[in-house]
Each structure stands twice: as structure tokens, then as C-alpha cells.
């Protein structure tokens, strides 16, 4: 098996990638503007619904039921899809899924495919895989197209090009498309992309999509989007290939209703998303006449086995957690080195990688101040802080017990276990040094205390601890 492309090859650990991102003032300005706007809008859209908390609970319950009986629902989905003339393929990992897709594309004899924005095909690195085999994948989502033409990496789940502003986008379009936008007016930019894509839609024979949901009962696949470009891909070509993670199921049509309320309000702050496309197998004379569904595991079964970690599989990729995350707002998505950035990336990516010995993956659960803003907004109530600390414990277990941090932690725990030792440490100032990294009288401390004193003063260490005072006065 090859390396799982869910993290980008050669990505540095989060703190090192963040260092680069924090130095980019343009990036920080772009991000702050975008997330501040969407945050306020989301809060408004959510406040409109009096039963929002109940909807969240319903979303959580339905997804938990799906996860608990995933095998049953998957088989039901396969039967329903097959009964309606679709073909179901099972893929254990990225490599297998990519090969299945490539074989299907090759069988059609085409060298260009159109793509609907999809996280899962990014997760398996489908585009580079196809390109290496001589097939050109054309992204049709506007933001995804910007990333593709700019030879860039996505930095947001919903708006992969959130880190770019209008002027940058115009430059990218001018270089990558034959229709050059005359200004950076959003309408001009969209028009240029429209013309560019229109040609692709009309010539494409094969389209590749992801799925927001799949209804097990009827074998229906659902994609929600804002631009309508996805719908063009889903209806015009002769062959449609959908790749989806095995957790994207809902049992019935009724269940779908909950998510079609939760998703748009959480992601784009809309009451309803502009385009909802649903297809069930094939319908002669209407839409594609061949439909393939690739069901992808890629670490999900392993995540499912983790009692605490599995709740990450409830995620509906709304990106609300990214937009409220103070860490994401400063560093942007690329610092996470993964197609899943932000809080959800910090808990999902390490689980999909499945190896806490991987330094980069192990740095992700620490890319959070545990402020809890993500949990507060998550429409399916994923307790992201809980999973973060749970994964940190796994990262600690995977590391050697001899590194400086583990030794300091073990030493502190040993001291805290016994009040006498604790008091001695207080008296000799060791505890103060432990907290502040220094003795409180110097402005610059040696490493790792320097990480504190680079931007903050350390408090003056009091002459007497509270405990000592209590002993003198009340003891």
C-alpha cells in the first residue's frame, strides 16, 4: 500500500508550517475578513431556527445510529443502487479507489474528465493520480478551479481558495485560462470562469463527483452546492463516477431532511442551498447512462473502532468549525498539511493516517487551544476538544518516554502526587520555575521558557505561597 495522501507529502509539523503562515500578512488579512463575515452570518442563520439544538441532537443521533450499524446500511445501499442500474465498487484504501476510477475512465477512452468539488477525491489524491496516467481532471467548482489553476493547495473545506483575494484570483485566471478577465470585479471573474467551464461541460463524457449524503433505503446520492456547476457535471456526461466515504450514509429520506437544514445554515449561512442534486442509479434517456459508486474505507473502519475518536465520522463537512477556530484564523488551512484543515482536520486526519508515530500527524491534535468554539457550532455535536485530548494521549503513548516533555510531565506528576513534595517544590521555587519557566526576575528565559518570554513577561514570584500564608495564619 502506498502512503495515504490525506496529508501532503513532506508537510512540516503544525508549529513549523504555522510559522510560515503567520509571516504572511496578506493571508492573515484575507482569512480574518472571510471568517469574520461568515461567522456573523452563520450565527444569524442559526438563530432563526427555534429548534436548532434539537436539530443538532437529531443529526447526532441519526449519524450515531448509522455508525453503529454501518455494515447493515452499506449493504442496503449497495442493493438499492444495484437494483436501480448502478454499479457498486468497494475500495479499502486510496490506492484501490484511484485504480478503480482510472480503470473506469480508461474503459471510456477519454483523456479529460470533469469533476464536482469533492473532499474525498482530494483525500485520496485522485487528481495527481489521474494526471500521472495521462487523464486531465478539470475542477468545475469556482474555488476549486482557482486552486487547480494556481497550482495551489486548498486551505478550507468549503472555500478552498479562501486565502486568495480578488486581485490574486484575476492573476491566476489570466495565466491559466484562454478567456482573460478584464478586471478583478467578481462578476467579470465569474463570467470568465463560466465560459471556460461551459466548453468543458459540453465536451466531457465522464464526470467524477463526491457525495454529501447517500440514502441507504433508496440508493440515492445527494450533492448540495451553490453554483450549479456540479449539476452540469452530474447530468451532462454519459458516465458518472461517485466516490464516497462509507460514513456518508443516512438511513432514510426522512433523515435527510435534518441534514438539509443543518448543512447549509452551518456552512454558507443559507436557509437552503441553491442546488440540491439527487440521483438514484440510472434513468434511461435522462442523465448519465452509466453510474458507478465507489465506497471508500481509507482508515474509516479503524476510526470506527475507537470509541472516542469515531464521533469524527459524524462530520458533514460544513466547515463551521474552521470558521470559528482562532487557530485556523491565524494560520490558514495549509498549515495543517492535510486536505482536512482546521479543528475537524486536527481530529480526522491523524485517525485516517492511522499512525501517531508520524510526527506531522501527531502534531495536529495539538494545533488547538481547546477553547471549545468548534464544539459549540458543530451541527452534529462532535466534541472536538474531547477527541483532541484523546488523540493527544495516543500521541504521548506513541512517543518515547525519554523526551524532555515527557520527563518534565512525569516529574511534575510525581511532585503533585504528594503534598509534601509539592510544598518543597514551592518553597525552593521549583514549582514557580515550572509554571513560568524561570525565576520571575528575568525578562528572557532559556528554552523552552523563551517561548513564553518572547512575547510576555513572567509574573513576579511571591515571597510566600498561599499555603504557607494559611499555615502561618490559620494552620
Amino acid at each position, binding site marked *: 500500500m502506498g502512503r495515504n495522501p490525506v496529508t501532503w507529502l513532506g508537510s512540516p509539523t503544525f*508549529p513549523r508550517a*504555522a510559522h510560515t503562515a503567520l509571516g504572511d500578512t496578506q493571508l492573515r488579512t484575507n482569512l480574518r475578513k472571510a471568517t469574520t463575515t461568515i461567522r456573523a452570518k452563520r450565527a444569524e442563520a442559526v438563530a432563526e431556527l427555534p429548534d436548532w439544538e434539537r436539530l443538532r441532537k437529531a443529526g447526532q443521533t441519526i449519524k450515531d445510529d448509522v455508525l453503529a450499524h454501518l455494515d447493515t446500511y452499506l449493504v442496503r445501499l449497495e442493493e438499492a443502487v444495484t437494483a436501480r442500474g448502478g454499479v457498486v465498487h468497494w475500495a479499502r484504501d486510496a490506492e484501490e479507489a484511484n485504480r478503480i476510477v482510472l480503470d473506469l475512465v480508461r474503459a471510456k477512452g477519454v483523456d479529460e474528465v470533469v469533476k464536482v468539488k469533492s473532499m474525498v477525491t482530494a483525500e485520496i489524491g485522485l487528481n495527481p493520480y489521474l494526471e500521472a496516467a495521462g487523464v486531465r481532471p478539470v475542477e468545475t467548482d469556482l474555488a476549486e478551479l482557482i486552486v487547480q489553476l494556481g497550482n495551489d493547495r486548498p486551505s478550507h473545506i468549503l472555500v478552498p481558495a479562501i486565502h486568495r483575494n480578488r486581485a490574486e484570483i484575476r492573476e491566476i485566471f489570466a495565466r491559466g485560462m484562454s478567456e482573460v478577465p478584464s478586471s478583478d470585479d467578481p462578476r467579470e471573474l465569474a463570467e470568465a470562469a463560466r465560459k471556460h467551464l461551459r466548453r468543458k461541460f459540453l465536451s466531457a463524457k465522464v464526470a467524477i463527483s463526491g457525495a454529501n449524503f447517500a440514502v441507504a433505503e433508496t440508493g440515492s446520492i445527494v450533492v448540495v452546492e451553490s453554483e450549479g456547476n456540479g449539476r452540469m457535471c452530474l447530468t451532462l456526461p454519459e458516465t458518472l463516477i461517485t466516490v464516497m466515504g462509507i460514513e456518508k450514509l443516512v438511513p432514510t429520506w426522512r433523515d435527510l431532511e435534518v441534514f438539509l437544514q443543518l448543512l447549509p445554515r452551518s456552512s454558507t449561512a443559507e436557509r437552503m442551498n441553491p442546488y440540491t442534486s439527487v440521483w438514484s442509479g440510472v434513468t434511461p434517456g435522462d442523465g448519465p447512462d452509466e453510474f458507478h459508486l465507489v465506497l471508500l474505507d481509507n482508515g474509516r473502519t479503524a476510526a470506527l473502532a475507537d470509541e472516542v475518536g469515531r464521533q469524527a465520522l459524524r462530520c458533514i463537512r460544513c466547515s463551521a468549525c474552521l470558521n470559528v477556530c482562532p487557530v485556523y484564523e491565524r494560520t490558514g488551512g495549509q498549515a495543517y498539511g492535510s486536505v482536512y484543515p482546521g479543528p475537524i482536520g486536527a481530529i480526522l486526519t491523524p485517525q485516517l493516517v492511522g499512525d501517531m508515530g508520524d510526527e506531522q500527524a501527531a502534531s495536529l491534535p495539538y494545533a488547538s487551544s481547546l477553547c471549545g468554539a468548534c464544539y459549540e457550532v458543530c451541527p452534529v455535536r462532535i466534541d472536538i476538544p474531547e477527541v483532541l485530548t484523546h*488523540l493527544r494521549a495516543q500521541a504521548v503513548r506513541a512517543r518515547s518516554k525519554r523526551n524532555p516533555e515527557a520527563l518534565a510531565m*512525569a516529574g*511534575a506528576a510525581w511532585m*503533585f502526587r504528594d503534598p509534601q513534595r509539592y510544598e518543597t517544590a514551592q518553597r525552593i521555587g521549583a514549582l514557580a520555575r515550572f509554571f513560568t519557566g524561570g525565576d520571575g526576575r528575568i525578562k528572557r528565559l532559556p528554552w523552552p521558557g523563551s517561548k513564553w518570554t518572547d512575547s510576555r513577561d513572567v509574573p513576579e514570584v511571591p515571597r510566600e505561597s498561599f499555603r504557607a500564608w494559611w499555615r502561618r495564619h*490559620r494552620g
Partner: protein
Amino acid sequence: MALFATCLTDTLYPDTAKAVVRLLERLGCEVDFPLGQTCCGQMHYNTGYHDEAAPLARRYAEVFDGYDYVVAPSGSCVGMVREFHPGLCGTSPAVERTYELSEFIVDILGVTDVGAYFPHRVTYHPTCHSLRLLGVGDKPLRLLREVKGLQLVELPQAEQCCGFGGTFALKNAETSTAMLADKMRCVQDTGAQVLTAGDNSCLMHIGGGLSRLRTGVRSVHLAEILASTEEQPWVATP
């Protein structure tokens, strides 16, 4: 009732703990400080050292067993006790009776005017764990509004994290500093002389930054403001 001072306050901010004692005694409580207490294990737990945190949680349950209430001047430590101790060593009477200071005063004592006097312009930072983990809501603000002489000014973007996050401030020092910079800008925009919060850890972080920038804004724990009276006013420690 018992005071859980928390290791940080006990060691670096004894004035806060003294203020809690003074305040609660003024409100008619009988305060004890069991000397067997040390640390709630939050730093270990949050950094992923769960095996090291478990014995500390057990110790907490033992030391505070038998008190009617345990009160701590720290939203994050109370959050640790109430939310995560049960997962480490099961629930205990001590865990169930642990309260954060403002919760205890408002919910248990049923008081919002604690008879305090603090003639300064003050802004309040809610701290993430008080706000989201515990949900103390506007209890600290209700207490502050009743303080004589105190001019309360609203902190812009109050609910944004200050960037402390325990070992996050060391592990992701640069991101933490970027968050701190924004928080400090908001504090300075209020024109407040004093920044207050219910947690000395966040105050150590923001206050350390404000002091480095020589802003002149002091960070003072909520307990010290509430303990301050006309007869015995708060004085800045040098």
C-alpha cells in the same frame, strides 16, 4: 466549605486565594483549606498525559471528600474536575460539589451584591473554559455590575480565545502570540485600567503580554475585585 486554590494560584497568585477567603468569610461561609490538595491534573490531561492525571484526580476526590462545597477561583480547573475527573476515576461527592467562584456566589449563596468597592474602569474577559466548558454565562458580569465605583466597559470580541491554552502557549508559541496580540488590542481599545477574568492562567498570559508592551493595564482576578472594600481596598502588588 473548602477552598481549592489550584496549584497556579497557590504558588504564583496567593493574593487571589486570600481574596477568596476574605470574600467568602464576609459572605458568611466557613472556609477551610485542606493542606493535602495539590493540582487538578488539567495540564497533564490536556497535554495527553492521562495516566499521570488520574492519580491527581483520585487525590482530589479524597482530599475534598466530606465538605459541603468546594470552591475554586478558576473556571478551567473546575471544568477539569467536573467534566473530566469522572472519566479518569469515576464520580465522587467532591466532584459533584465543586463550584467555580462566581457560580458559587450567585447560584448557591444567591447573592449578586457582595458589598465590594473598586473605583476603576474594568473590562471582563470571559475565558473559554468558564464560558463554554462550565457555562457560567453572565454570572461574573452580574457580580461586577453591583460593585460600587466600578465602571464596567465591554470587551470587543470577548468570546475569542486569548491564546493561552496551557501547553499550547509553548507548543504553538507563535500562533498563541498572534491570538494574544488581537486580544490585547481589544483590551486596549476599551480604555480600561484593569482587565479581569475568573482564571489566573489566562490572566498570566494576557497580563504578561500587556506588561511586556508597557500598556499600564493591570490584570486582576475577579476574586480580588469582589473582595475589595472601602475599608480594605485592593492594592496593586508591586
